[in-house]
């Protein structure tokens, strides 16, 4: 298993600003991901955070809007840029530790006003 922490746990931000979310894992992991869970919805993969190279984004998500850093095997950041109310969601960091097992952080609850 893996212990994942995220900062901040929640934030209220104004339209047009940016927020950077941090994800820290208690062990080195190769595969780290960022998901979004919109209100009342299920989880959607935003991107895979690759260590030492650019993140791989899923359809519908772009680097300019969601820049990601992965400086080492235990840490990643996701920035939500130029926010609008539609970005209000829970953002979740996730890691895969084995062939199949995937674990999630506690999430960052973002509200954009």
């Amino acid at each position, binding site marked *: *298993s893996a212990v*994942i922490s995220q900062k901040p746990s929640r934030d209220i931000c104004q339209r047009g600003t940016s927020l950077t979310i941090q994800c820290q894992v208690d062990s080195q992991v190769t*595969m780290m*991901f960022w998901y979004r869970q919109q209100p009342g*919805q*299920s*989880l*959607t*993969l935003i991107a*895979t955070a690759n260590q030492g190279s650019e993140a*791989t984004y*899923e359809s519908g998500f772009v680097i300019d809007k969601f820049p990601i850093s992965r400086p080492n095997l235990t840490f990643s950041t996701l920035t939500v840029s130029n926010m609008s109310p539609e970005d209000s969601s829970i953002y*979740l960091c*996730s890691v*895969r530790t084995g*062939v*199949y*097992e*995937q*674990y*999630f*952080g*506690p*999430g960052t*609850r973002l509200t954009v006003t």
Partner: protein
Amino acid sequence: TQLLEQSPQFLSIQEGENLTVYCNSSSVFSSLQWYRQEPGEGPVLLVTVVTGGEVKKLKRLTFQFGDARKDSSLHITAAQPGDTGLYLCAGDSSNYGGSQGNLIFGKGTKLSVKP
């Protein structure tokens, strides 16, 4: 498009009752995970099933993966208020050209167990 359909969407029962939650798809998955999520928290992994027909037990929870690896069920025996939460199934789509780690999630079953 791969979809995972969960049913029922909502379930409210009394303590001590049994229940079953279903997760169905027209696609085959290499593995399927079940998670429980409580308000304000991230999903917590309960179990991973990999082999068709596999049955796994976690105390009062029994998980089954369909023979064709397209469906799964979660059965809770003698439910307790502590079982309350959102139950999510998620299938691994990487063997279909999806990104590794791109779990396809169902919409979840919101379970409420009343004392």
